[in-house]
Structure formats: structure tokens, C-alpha cells
């Protein structure tokens, strides 16, 4: 009995809001509700699917997510493996946690003050005579490649993965595996490439997958550091929702629905196609 109540409570707060929101968005996107609604229509879907903005935004979000994750994971692997002993004790073991105290919005503000044309690095370059005027400093904020966004997100995510990897390193008994590999004749390099890195990546695969999706949906960093076109998905949707042009609102909901469908499909395929993926690492 208690179990039933507990599970109902969980579903009520974890799933029902999302489902309600999704239905509202579907209704809105089909013209069934909203200020300007005048009956069932597929026009918002047609508009969204035929304009390039949405595809560009999805592609841009995926691009940023993949670049950020690649950089963060490579950095984190490198730091974890080469600094292992220092990360366990001493000042570094505390320092590594400090970046986690930065909310995304503060990280974005910091990156802006550091990388913008009038930012700190530009001033340093100026004082060192590398540039003569502000305009010569490269575009790293609101730029087409999202340099500022990527920089900021990497600062947020890398420390997290360093902690994750050094945890896994001990929990998965990698030192013992490495010794075993050495007795089997593996060199130091072979141990790193054939044992340590594969084990770490395999054990963190689920978390990495979640982070790719998490970065794709990130909001405040691209809001402050990104440009209008292309913009990351969350920013695009919220902008369309909050614009004065009421006709844009159904399109925003259409995009939200499509995004949910895409992510839902990916997760469902993985969940039913490779259930082990969730069981092993959903911890």
C-alpha cells in the first residue's frame, strides 16, 4: 500500500508535469489553444518543418554539444590519468571541486568578461602590443562557431568529468587491472590505451550520453554568449515564446514538441535496444 502511494507520488511529480506540458505544447502547435488559435491546423508544423531555422538550430546545438563533450572528456582523461596521485590528496583534491561552485550564468559572465572584444584577454593583448585597437581582437563572443559558448561549457563540465573519472578509477579497480595487464606484458602506454581509457569510457558511457543531451538543451550560456542566428535550441524556443509577435508562439511549441519527440525516440531506441546500457551505468 505504502509502495503504491510512493510510486503514485513519484509519477505525479516526475512524469505528469512533463506529459501535461507536452500535451499543451501539442495542442498549441496544432492551433487548438492559444490567443490566436482558430481551430485545428497543420500550418505551424509546415512552417517549422519547411524553414531552415529549426534544422540549423538543432544542428548547431548538436555541434556545440559534441565539441564540448569531446574537449571536456579528452581534457578530463588526460588530467585524471596523469595527475591521479595528486587528485587523491593535498590541495589539488580540494581545488578540483571549486569550479562546481560556479552556476552556468556566472560562468557565462566570467567568460564574457574574459573573452569579449573589451574583455581581459583583449586588454592583456593590447598592453603587450599584440593588438593596437579593440577591433583587432578576434570574435569569441556572439561568434558563428560559438567559441565563447564552448569555452564556458568546457569550464563547467571538465571538472565534473575529472571527478567522475577519478572515482571510477578506484571503484572499478583499475589499478589492479593495470597491474594485471603489466604482468601480461603490456607497456605503460598500452595499459593507458587498452585498459584504463576503454574501462573509463565504457563505465561512463551513460553519463556522457546524458551530458550530450544536457548540453544540447543548455540555456543561459548561449543566451548570454551566443548569436541570434544560428542559436541554440532552448534559446530559440524561449525567444520565439517571448517575442511580441504572437504568431511565433505556436512555432515555438512546435519546435519544443519536435525536440521532445527526437530526444524521446533516441532514448527509447537505446532503452529497448540496449537495456544493458542503462542498467550498467545508470548509477
Amino acid at each position, binding site marked *: 500500500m505504502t509502495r503504491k502511494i510512493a510510486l503514485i507520488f513519484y509519477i505525479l*511529480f516526475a512524469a505528469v508535469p512533463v506529459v501535461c506540458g507536452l500535451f499543451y505544447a501539442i495542442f498549441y502547435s496544432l492551433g487548438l489553444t492559444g490567443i490566436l488559435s482558430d481551430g485545428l491546423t497543420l500550418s505551424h508544423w509546415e512552417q517549422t518543418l519547411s524553414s531552415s531555422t529549426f534544422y540549423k538550430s538543432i544542428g548547431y546545438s548538436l555541434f556545440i554539444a559534441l565539441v564540448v563533450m569531446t574537449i571536456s572528456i579528452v581534457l578530463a582523461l588526460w588530467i585524471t590519468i596523469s595527475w591521479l596521485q595528486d587528485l587523491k590528496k593535498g590541495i589539488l583534491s580540494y581545488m578540483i571541486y571549486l569550479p562546481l561552485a560556479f552556476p552556468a550564468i556566472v560562468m557565462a559572465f566570467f567568460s564574457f568578461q574574459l573573452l569579449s572584444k573589451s574583455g581581459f584577454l583583449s586588454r592583456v593583448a593590447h598592453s603587450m602590443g599584440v593588438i593596437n585597437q579593440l577591433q583587432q581582437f578576434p570574435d569569441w563572443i556572439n561568434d558563428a562557431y560559438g567559441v565563447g559558448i564552448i569555452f564556458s561549457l568546457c569550464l563547467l563540465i571538465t571538472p565534473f568529468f575529472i*571527478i567522475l573519472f577519478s572515482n571510477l578509477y578506484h571503484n572499478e579497480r583499475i589499478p589492479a587491472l593495470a597491474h594485471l595487464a603489466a604482468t601480461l606484458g603490456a607497456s605503460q602506454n598500452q595499459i593507458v590505451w587498452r585498459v584504463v581509457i576503454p574501462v573509463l569510457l565504457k563505465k561512463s558511457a551513460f553519463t556522457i550520453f546524458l551530458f550530450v543531451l544536457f548540453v544540447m538543451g543548455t540555456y543561459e550560456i548561449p543566451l548570454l554568449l551566443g548569436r541570434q542566428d544560428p542559436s541554440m535550441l532552448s534559446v530559440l524556443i524561449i525567444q520565439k515564446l517571448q517575442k511580441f509577435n504572437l504568431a511565433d508562439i505556436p512555432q515555438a511549441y512546435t519546435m519544443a514538441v519536435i525536440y521532445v519527440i527526437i530526444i524521446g525516440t533516441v532514448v527509447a531506441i537505446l532503452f529497448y535496444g540496449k537495456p544493458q546500457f542503462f542498467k550498467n551505468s545508470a548509477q
Partner: protein
Amino acid sequence: MIKRICQLFFAISIFFAIGFLVVISLGGNWTYPALLPATVSLDNWRVMLISDSSLWKAFLQSMLISLTVAAVTTTAAFVTSKHIAHSKYRSQLLLLSYIPYVLSPVIIAATLHFFFIYSQLSGTIVGVMLAQFFIAYPFGVIILNNFWNPRMRSIEELALTLGSSSWSTWYKVLLPISKNALLLCFFQTFLVSWFEFGLTNLIGVGSVQTLTVRVFSFINEANIFYAAIASCLLILPPMLLIWLNKRYIFNTQTLI
């Protein structure tokens, strides 16, 4: 040697980030291309924290929201995660917990906003707390789920056969053993709430001014000095928590 230099660089860059924000918060009149602000004083802090009480208000309001969300979330997650962990459908149920992160909190907030307006919770503290609970609660369940392993179940059963009622088993066995897990859950969900911006801004519609919302509006007003003060206030409590609880956080592998 190279390793030492890298480590030193790493340590310096972390302190640089904190120091940089502090210097901006103390600064004034920072024209290009000066490396540092022309004036460095406590004036900004004095104005923000003494003359203009709105930042204090934002700080206290954020604290109230985050502490409440963390306390309610931890309690609810502790009780329900046990039943989820012991359920036949454990992995399906847990999958639900990842939804808010996978779908982005701000997008969920966008689709839910209508319901908050309809129930007149939009723009209220309670509304913001409820919206944050939708995000923090699944996260709390993820954190506590691992705690309910088969061993914990055996301990619970053993207590029962020794004559303990289910209430005293909760109170005398499960609660004391789970102290660390609960603290971890409390801190992590506190951070989820404390760091939250998009959803809070949308549901709070500008009336609920948390610290993150204040940072954003200062940036929009191009008032970088005040934005830096608000940023410092934002990173201070988590830094304290992280410092105090390094070893608890060390055991988690979940989302920030």
C-alpha cells in the same frame, strides 16, 4: 616538471576566476584598454548591500527558496526512492527521473507556464518552488537510488526479525545509516535550485528575483560591477558547501 607547471596553471586559473570576479565587483571606471579598473574600493559593495537592500533581499529570497526546495525534495526522495529501488520496474521508473535534464528545464518550464498562470502560481515564490521541485525531485531520486541496495534491504529485514517495527526500523536504522546520503542529496538539490535560472526566470516572470535572475538583469543593464557582486554572492554558499562536504560529493556520479 611539466606536470607541476600544468598543475600550477590549473590552480592559478581557478583562483584567477574567483579573484577576477572579486576585482570587478570592487572596481569602478574600467575603460579600455586599462588592465584593471581605475578605482578599486568597497563602494559597490557598500551601495549594494547597505544603501540598496534589494540584493540582500534577493540573496535571502534565494536562500529561502533553495533551502525549502532542498528540504522538501530530500524528504520526498528519501521515502519514495526506496520503493522505486525495490520495484519490479526500477529501471523504467528511474528513466523518468532523467527527463527534466534530457529535455532541458527551461523547455519544460515553457510548456508548463500556462498551467502556472492558470493556477495563479506564476510570478509567486510558491510557484517557483514548485517548478524547481519538478526538476530537483527526480534528481534527488537519482542520488538516493543507489543507497537502496540489496545489502540495505537485508539490514532492514534483519532489524525486523530482531523485533523492530517498521517505524522504528526507519527511525533507528535506516535514517542513521543514510545520514551521509541524505546530506549529499540535500546539498546537491540545494545547488540545483540555487543555480537555476531559465526556469525560475520564466515561472517567476520577473517578480521573483533570485540571485541568478539578478545577475542576468545586471548584465542586461551592462552593470558589470553589480553583476560581479551578485556573482560573488552566488558562488559563496556553494563553495562553502563543497569545501565542507568534499568527501560526500566524491561519491556521486550524477549531473551537476
